[in-house]
């Protein structure tokens, strides 16, 4: 009958088509994967001093990943597109849309929590695009992001404990010790300061301040005076390098400042102190930053790459953006695809607790292992991440370092969850 023959023809046609398509898709799997990463940067506006270094951090990560992939024979090619968040959540949302329109499969940035949530709610959750902000607020944990937001920066709560631990390490039992806190008036500063005050007073310590300073000002002499008054046992200044250049100078000028009493968080961690921060402001000071058991060699590689690229000096949290970029690349390798949703699904597979560990110096091997489908545990420059379900890093390992002769020297590591 006509029906049966045409049915048979149809079936054969379908089978051929299926075979062809199947063949095509497997052919596509061995074809090159072209990945575009979106950089959501603060290029203009009140936070524009962070833009150039974030740009550089992501760019050198991409260059390094391209080299490593080529050397390891992994057919992965990564390019970048960028957009300006302008320091304003509305503009950040529009910029994120532009990035996605230009083909970005993942977005590194933005810098602050309000922008991050605006972008997440308005775009990335719906499109399953992974977002890698450097915001540290607790809010980013609790928002319903359906697994699209990941952070390589330690949340405020963990870092507050790390700071308290660093202080305790320095001066022993916190009970009745006076800690003078100053912070930069914006989300990072406030969130961390609140956590630190809680952690310190819970251990019986006393807090002076916190002194809040507006970053846009010219002089901070009055604020610096309030920090050093009453001869506290230690100070913590939560700040970014650009303002600390001024604040640190004000501290030194008070004549009552002792840099060895200072402890700073990760935003003021650099392998070499930038030229605009007066060295006396940090000499002998201690600090915390995200770390891992491969910290030394990882940071060394990062610094080499940074110096080789020329351009701007270190700024806050650049290593974290470097790590975010690398993780996206690894996930794309694991997924054999540049599809945003596929990448989102593979992030946990490249940071799986218990799987073989690879550090930044072994990126080529990591890429190869990911490409072949094995789960790995990538340990970044700023620490191992092993993300929780809500995208926050669970590893609470922190480096405690001291500035000696203008250079950062790690003196011990702690686990902030203890």
């Amino acid at each position: 009958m006509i029906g049966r023959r045409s049915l048979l023809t149809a079936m054969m046609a379908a089978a051929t088509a299926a075979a062809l398509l199947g063949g095509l898709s497997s052919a596509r799997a061995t074809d090159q994967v072209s990945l575009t990463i979106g950089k959501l940067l603060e290029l203009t506006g009140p936070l524009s001093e962070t833009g150039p270094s974030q740009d550089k951090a992501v760019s050198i990560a991409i260059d390094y990943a391209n080299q490593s992939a080529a050397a390891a024979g992994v057919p992965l090619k990564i390019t970048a597109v960028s957009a300006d968040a302008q320091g304003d959540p509305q503009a950040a949302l529009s910029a994120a849309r532009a990035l996605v329109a230009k083909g970005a499969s993942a977005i590194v940035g933005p810098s602050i929590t309000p922008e991050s949530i605006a972008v997440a709610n308005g775009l990335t959750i719906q499109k399953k695009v992974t977002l890698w902000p450097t915001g540290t607020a607790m809010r980013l944990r609790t928002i319903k992001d359906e697994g699209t937001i990941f952070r390589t920066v330690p949340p405020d709560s963990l870092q507050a404990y790390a700071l308290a631990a660093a202080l305790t390490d320095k001066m022993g039992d916190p009970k009745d010790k006076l800690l003078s806190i100053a912070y930069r008036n914006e989300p990072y500063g406030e969130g961390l300061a609140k956590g630190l005050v809680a952690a310190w007073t819970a251990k019986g310590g006393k807090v002076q301040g916190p002194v809040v300073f507006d970053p846009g000002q010219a002089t901070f002499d009055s604020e610096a005076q309030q920090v050093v008054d009453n001869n506290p046992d230690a100070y913590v200044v939560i700040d970014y390098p650009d303002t600390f250049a001024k604040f640190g100078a004000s501290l030194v000028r008070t004549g009552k400042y002792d840099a060895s009493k200072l402890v700073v968080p990760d935003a003021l961690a650099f392998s070499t102190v930038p030229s605009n921060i007066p060295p006396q402001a940090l000499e002998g000071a201690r600090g915390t930053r995200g770390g891992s058991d491969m910290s030394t060699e990882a940071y060394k590689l990062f610094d080499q790459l940074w110096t080789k690229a020329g351009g701007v000096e270190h700024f806050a949290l650049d290593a974290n953006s470097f790590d975010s970029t690398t993780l996206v690349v690894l996930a794309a390798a694991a997924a054999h695809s540049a599809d945003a949703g596929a990448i989102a699904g593979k992030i946990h597979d490249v940071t799986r607790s218990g799987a073989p560990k690879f550090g930044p110096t072994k990126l080529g091997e990591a890429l190869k292992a990911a490409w072949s489908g094995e789960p790995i545990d990538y340990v970044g420059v700023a620490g191992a991440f092993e993300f929780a379900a809500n995208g926050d890093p669970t590893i609470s390992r922190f480096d405690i370092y001291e500035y000696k002769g203008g250079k950062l020297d790690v003196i011990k590591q702690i686990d902030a969850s203890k």
Partner: protein
Amino acid sequence: MTRGLEAASGAPTGAPERRFESIPAAARLAAVLIAAAILMSFARGPIAVGQTTLNGLVSARYLALGAVGLTLVFGTLRIINFAHGDLLTLGAYLTFGISALGLPFWPAAAVAVALTAVIAYALDFIIWEPMRRARTSTLQLFLVAIGLAIVIRYTIQFFAGSQVRGVGQDVLTSVNLGPFHLGALQALVLVVGVVAIAAVGLALAFTRLGKQIRALSDNMALAEVCGIDTRRAVRLIWLIAGGLAALAGVLYAAAVGSVNPNFGFFILLGLFTAAVLGGIGSAYGALAGGIVIGLAQEWSTLFFNTRWKPVVGFAILIVMLLVMPRGIFGGGRARS
């Protein structure tokens, strides 16, 4: 006839010169400030008050020097020059650029100041003067100023990048005056600032050109009728405004130690406050306004959390405009 016009036209005046009239106002202001300082000493101790006073006088320098140019332009040409803050930035960044070519910092700064003065003059030639001739509205002038501010700031950022730049001067050496301390560079800024403003104020009061400028401030049309070469006076105003702005920017950069392209715009409102406070059109007013704002902001940290410092300036502005809109050394009319 108004005083400025009288003085400029050389006609014998029965009324006292403005500078004499302003002395009582200055004395009153000084008395109020000193009384406030004494009162606060009872609450917080003389050392704290003295130190914050010194800090306040330093920040007054940036404000005052920047405000002088603003007040001159506003007073004579009625232009709310929103681009003025970015002239400060221009001065600082031109200094960086020129010193990158090999000149040491202070000679480079001198060149930058001259260059910015010329640029300000050129901008008047290209933009402001044609608009004056076309008798454009306040709104248009205001929008052009905003556009100019944006263009200057982002052109600087285009070439220099938005990252913070260190100035490379010694920001740490401190001069100790008994229980008080002052950065050496800050002291330098204080001195240079006062000298510059005094020079401008004296020039305005005593030179012929200065008197002509004050005449323009009162009534430009009438001044022309009196035979004053308004074009020349206006050009000079822009040269002075641009040069002083650049000087303020360089001093700010030197004393603070590092800048980024936004800094001029960030302090612009503070400059306006100082200018309005002191009385539009008066260089001494800019000085007084700067002092009041600088002191008020630093003194506020004795009583309120330091996070409220920026608000103090704005609050004073609003109160002043409501209560004493002509400012301390006030000249023009403020009510409509």
